[in-house]
């Protein structure tokens, strides 16, 4: 609040000074006591209104990119301001009243949006080059679980989802309702039986009534259970399980995208990992990596196979990011190794003493005013961002310069940096740290 008032005064002191001058002028120039009283009152109200407006703007300026649920309060303040002005400027009073009402409606809707649970879509996960071929079945299965659900052990968490996006439509647990696409429990055994389905036309792809007969001309149909799984991943419309086709196509077309193509674009290694997990989690022996990839090669021509390192997000920024911004803030601090050097209240294990203690809610405002400060930040948030990206902008006394790496600007995603700044800006000396969400 103090920071907000300060920012408002920094920004709008000339306006307030003008109004004060006006007040003085009225005292001197108006002789009629009634008129003087009225002018004084109006100017005083004007000063309050101007201050509210400045506070509202300062709130937007400081918290625009922050997850501040109080931002819509600014709109409510402008509403009050507009109604106040409507009383004094009767000529255009209707405009002020309508404007005020609109601000009120917008404040309500904005407040509603801020009141709802806040979900931020993180960056697409960074791809890491893994050597799937040399992994054991369990390691492959673990990677498969990560691809499907986003992490090891996440298959038991409802709503967990990974790069493969499979749980958006498929059920994975025995007996679970799976309305959009078949439940994949039991697939290793069921795959073989699908080959005998009269609609599958094993060995005779030309007889199929589906929109796409083969994965590519000459690929043929699956001969084994694993080949069936590979075919259904790479050519979902070659055979559609009854009742799961695109509505109106009579199961001739599948709504599922080819998994080796955008937007999912799993490489052959990743597909092998996914398949291995489906066997391993049911306690079944999985085919070897070579057998699985061979099955996929039957249905995905060389030119269509995505390369694992292709399209790596942020690749041009110089290597993978340390944190994507999807993680909770304490994990971001851990991943970026901030905890090794800094003491950060509220973060477990962050007791480092190589760098200064990060109570930036208290430190930043005073440092910005320090004559030794060389940066351009005007607010706490800007200061924190700047000190992560350019640590030399201000070197805290007692700590040597050039100790902190200068590459965090490239190694942290914008989402991760945003979370760090959010958290640190709330830390104040002698106060409880905020809760980690």
């Amino acid at each position, binding site marked *: 609040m103090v920071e907000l008032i300060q920012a408002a005064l920094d920004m709008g002191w000339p306006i307030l000074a003008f109004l004060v001058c006006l007040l003085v002028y009225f005292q001197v120039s108006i002789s009629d006591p009634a008129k003087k009283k009225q002018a004084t009152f109006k100017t005083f109200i004007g000063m309050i209104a101007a201050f509210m407006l400045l506070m509202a703007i300062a709130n937007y300026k400081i918290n625009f990119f922050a*997850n501040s649920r109080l931002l819509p309060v600014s709109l409510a303040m402008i509403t009050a301001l507009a109604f106040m002005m409507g009383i004094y400027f009767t000529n255009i009073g209707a405009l002020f009243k309508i404007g005020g009402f609109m601000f009120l409606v917008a404040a309500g809707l904005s407040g509603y*949006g801020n009141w709802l649970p806040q979900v931020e*879509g993180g960056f697409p996960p960074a791809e890491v080059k893994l050597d799937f071929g040399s992994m054991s079945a369990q390691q492959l299965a673990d990677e498969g679980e990560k691809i499907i659900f986003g992490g090891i052990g996440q298959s038991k968490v409802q709503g967990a989802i990974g790069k493969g996006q499979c749980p958006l*439509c498929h059920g994975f647990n025995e007996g679970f309702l799976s309305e*959009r696409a078949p439940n994949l429990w039991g697939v290793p055994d069921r795959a073989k039986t699908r080959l005998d389905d009269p609609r599958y036309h094993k060995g005779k792809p030309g007889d199929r009534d589906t929109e796409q007969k083969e994965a590519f001309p000459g690929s043929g149909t699956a001969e084994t259970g694993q080949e069936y799984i590979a075919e259904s991943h790479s050519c979902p419309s070659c055979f559609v399980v009854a009742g799961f086709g695109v509505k109106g196509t009579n199961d001739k077309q599948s709504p599922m995208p080819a998994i080796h193509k955008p*937007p999912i674009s799993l490489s052959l290694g990743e597909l092998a990992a996914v398949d291995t997990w489906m066997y391993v989690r049911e306690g079944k022996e999985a085919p070897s990596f070579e057998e699985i990839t061979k099955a996929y090669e039957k249905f995905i021509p060389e030119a269509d196979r995505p390369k694992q390192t292709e*399209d790596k997000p*942020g690749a041009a*920024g110089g290597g993978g990011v340390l944190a994507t911004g999807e993680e909770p803030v304490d994990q971001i601090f851990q991943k970026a190794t901030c905890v090794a050097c800094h003491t950060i209240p509220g973060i477990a294990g962050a007791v480092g003493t190589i760098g200064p203690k990060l109570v930036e809610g208290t430190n930043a405002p005073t440092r910005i005013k320090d004559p030794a400060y060389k940066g351009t930040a005007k607010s706490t948030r800007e200061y924190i961002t700047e000190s992560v990206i350019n640590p030399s902008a201000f070197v805290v006394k007692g700590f040597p310069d050039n100790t902190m790496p200068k590459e965090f600007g490239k190694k942290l995603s914008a989402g991760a940096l945003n979370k760090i700044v959010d958290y640190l800006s709330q830390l104040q000396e002698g106060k409880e740290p905020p809760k980690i969400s």
Partner: protein
Amino acid sequence: MGSLTRKKTLAVMALSAMIGLLLLPIVVSVPALASGGGAPAGGPPPDVVKKEGGEGDKDKKVEKARDVYYKTEGIVSGLPAPKTGDNAKDYPRYNFESRVLLWFANQQHLYYGSFVLAVPIFCMVIEFMGVMTKDKAMAKKYDQLAYDFIKISLTAYSLTAILGGILIFTFLTLYPAFFGYLSSIFRPVMHIYALMFVAESGTLYIYYYGWDKMKEGFLKWIHLSMSVILNVIGTVLMFLANSWIGFMMSPAGVDEQGRFLGNIWHVIHTALWNPLNVHRILGNMAFGGGVVAAYAAYRFLSSKTDEERAHYDWMGYIAMSLGVAFLIPLPFAGYWLMREVYAYRQQMGITLMGGLLAWLFIIQATMIGILFLSTNYYLWQALGRMRGAERFQRWIKYFVFLLVCGFLVFITPHTMVMTPAELKAMGGQQHPVLGNYGVMSAKNGGINVIITTTVLTFIWYQRGNRVPSVSWSKFGNIFMGVFFFFAYVNIIWLAIYGYFIPANVRVGLSVPQVATTLSCLFFMTALNLSMLKGAKQIGPIEWGKISVRSQYALIMLATAFTWMMGLMGYIRSSVRLFWHVNEIMRDNSPWAYTHTVGFAANMISFNVLFFWISIMFVFWLGTLAAKKAPVEAKAPVPGQAPQPAVGH
């Protein structure tokens, strides 16, 4: 007679010449389109040129590739979509989020664009009503109203063009790689777009400045025809602009690498183009109605005389009626769009309705509820200006009950993305109290109850000061009552029945539900109108004698609609997640993540308020330009409610 015929012939010739001139750009560009946009977008790739130009290679080799959507083969005629990186070359930037700047520029252009495209449609309808009505005083009033509308839009028109320029510069300076790719694909379309814009401007100016010269007899019909041409051009303009966003969401006409395959029609006619077109036309109309209604409310509230108040009360009513007439089919058009989204990419649909963006749809449902509640509130208030309508007041509480019930069902979510902690707190995916509520058929039931009740309110309003005097009025009333009763029973029964059947069957229930609502809308309003022919008037309509609150309901309607437009635009755009062009060109900027709901809400509010502040300024300018009482304001205010041109 001879001179009149000559005049007519000349007028027809002038009109034909104008149409010919306007269509000339398209005719000229047709051969270019037929051959895939003349020289291929971005020029043929170097390897193709090499193959073609190689000495001794007599058989000209061309590279062929498969269309990602149409699955047809085409000759590769463009460069692949660029692979961008997080650097200043691909994403030049200020010390601010480029995406937010673009968001702002885009949204403002869209608001103004929608407004200036919608207003000529209103003008056309109102001018036509003026020409057709036999009451001369009313005819003049309608004509003046249409003129007032176009006058407002004229100032907004230049602002639209300025904002369009700002948008292009923002694209060019902040997203050069992406815009370069998009313009390489759409180059011929963009040129036609620019030419159509010139045609639109020309027609608009002739239409506006020729108003007085062409106000009588046959020339009036010519003038009216020009409004049709104006709207045809405007609609084509919008369709062309829609093709770009359609391409970004559901690309077609290119191969997997994003290389243009020579067929510009495929690029334009993507999977989502048509539903987007329909949705946007209806949305623009409802939005335009809201803006004009807000203008009328502003003028009403600042009126100094009863005559002015009467005029602007009437104007607000007409604008609101037109806006709502297009608001009613909007949810159905939205439903069609969503169906097409699901059909195109199921994951995209799920991201929208049951994934990352699902909370935004909860806001949208709330907004739709607010819009319909405001409309009903306005109409109930409007009953106050009719003597004799007091008899309907006691029914309002039942309407409120129906609307609130429908609203609550409509905003109840079914599937939401939750954190493990939230899941644990709730004890599972479903709410412990609400359980499995909020399935689609129930939600459809909710919105259909709201719309049907709005139709009923409107029928009540039409009867406000009149009592049917046709011989079969008793039978008509009973029939109408029974029809509405069974409509409610059918909608609600299907909503409940949906809980007992599988999801894929349940989806089909929306058809009978929507059909029931539309039957009420069309058949019952038509029946009501025929019953009111020669009806006995039990009191006058006292235009201008409406509560101030009603005008705030109009402003609420306008603001809420603007906000919803911003919200839906954001949803539509952010569903691409980290793709500039879905699955073709990846967004590798530092802003490839999706903002939180709160940030989006703040940003939408900012855009909405900026638009309203600027358009208020336009309104204010309008009042400066014409500091005179509305024409015919001194004429006795007609006692009969004008029938809005909405088919009922």
